[in-house]
């Protein structure tokens, strides 16, 4: 049985841990709110660019742009969205597992699967397993997510145009609510424009046909399809950031609760030990007094 002093030290230390996990929980809650705000703020832009790209592809035809081209899939690329830090439960494990599962099942017939990794945790995992890693970037924050998405978009677009990749996917944690996140695999290249009927609902074909396109449809597609790819990656990055804070919040909530349980158990142990030592001392005193009576 540990000494009273040892138990007391232990309690103090667990109490300190609980303070830290509690603080981290509050921080991730605040950051989660901000990240959710960024997701909502991106919606009008996403809707607008989606509807314009589908409008353009409808009037110009889906074979009108190199980024729409469906090729036999020989080489596939996966953009992996992980985080730089842990302490977020199974957040990173879910992504890395999903990537491996997808590569083993859906991409089993593909000659070559290469990864472009965002986030240190994903990089650590796949470097250890000697996967083909084309590039690695640190995990984005809300402020840098747009830049990360732009640079990643330009790189995969170039890979696709140069024939280095025939298909590109992104794997990320999608935010459902604070309690649940689900890993998603989404194809980003070739771009599959949404059907004009759903994207431009309410607008008739005639209205679309009446537009003047400047300089022409081709140049517009050249400029706007990359923006569409970028926004898909941006949204994936934001979903990933939001999910990360949600996962961290849950993990820290559990850690705080566990620390509380531990403190209760230790306090019980401490009291029992104290009681035992008192009983022992009393017994000794009584024993001593009996002996003196002789």
């Amino acid at each position, binding site marked *: 049985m540990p000494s009273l002093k040892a138990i007391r030290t232990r309690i103090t230390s667990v109490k300190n841990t609980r303070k830290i996990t509690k603080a981290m929980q509050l921080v991730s809650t605040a950051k989660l709110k901000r990240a959710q705000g960024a997701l909502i703020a991106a919606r009008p832009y996403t809707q607008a660019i989606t509807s314009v790209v589908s409008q353009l592809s409808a009037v110009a035809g889906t074979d009108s742009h190199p980024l729409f081209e469906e090729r036999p899939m020989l080489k596939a690329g996966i953009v992996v969205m992980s985080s730089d830090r842990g302490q977020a439960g199974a957040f990173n494990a879910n992504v890395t597992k999903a990537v491996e599962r997808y590569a083993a099942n859906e991409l089993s017939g593909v000659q070559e699967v290469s990864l472009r990794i965002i986030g240190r945790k994903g990089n650590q995992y796949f470097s250890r397993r000697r996967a083909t890693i084309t590039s690695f970037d640190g995990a984005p924050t809300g402020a840098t997510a747009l830049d990360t998405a732009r640079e990643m978009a330009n790189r995969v677009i170039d890979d696709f145009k140069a024939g280095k990749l025939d298909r590109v996917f992104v794997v990320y944690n999608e935010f459902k609510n604070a309690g649940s996140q689900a890993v998603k695999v989404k194809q980003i290249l070739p771009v599959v424009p949404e059907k004009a009927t759903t994207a431009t609902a309410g607008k008739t074909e005639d209205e679309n046909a*009446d537009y003047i396109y400047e300089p022409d449809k081709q140049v517009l597609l050249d400029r*706007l399809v990359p923006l569409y790819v970028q926004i898909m990656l941006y949204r994936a990055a934001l979903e990933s950031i939001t999910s990360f804070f949600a996962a961290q919040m849950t993990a820290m909530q559990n850690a705080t609760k566990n620390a509380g349980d531990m403190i209760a158990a230790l306090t019980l142990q401490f009291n029992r030990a104290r009681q035992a030592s008192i009983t022992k001392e009393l017994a000794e005193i009584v024993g001593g007094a009996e002996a003196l009576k002789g």
Partner: protein
Amino acid sequence: MAMDLNTIFSVNVVTPKGVIAHTEADSVQAPGELGEFEMLPGHIPMLTALKPGVLTIGTKARAKYAVSSGYLRVDPTGSVEILVEQALPAKDIDVEAARKELATAEAELAKWGDKPMDGDYTNVQQRAGWARARIDTVTH
């Protein structure tokens, strides 16, 4: 003098970070793919590509923004939607930071040499373009 309904139109500037301007204006000057152009009320429906540069909304009360690439669309009702990947009001621009970014990017482009002009090259070019747009917005 009757007020013509067509002397103003609504302008919406949308970026991935949110709607940054939603206002009524009598004109818009935008950096088109083929050069700077001015748009007045009553324009027919149009979709045009924008390149990084200066966006000015209104002639009397002028609001200036640095914008990166995107599009300007006039819908059949005459309202204007400007969608750009980045936009920054003139007052929020840090010119010194932009100058430094431009110098760094230009130096990188200058020593690119025989390296393949891949996605990373596009990235540096776009960084330079965005820095130039911000400098122009403040200095012009």
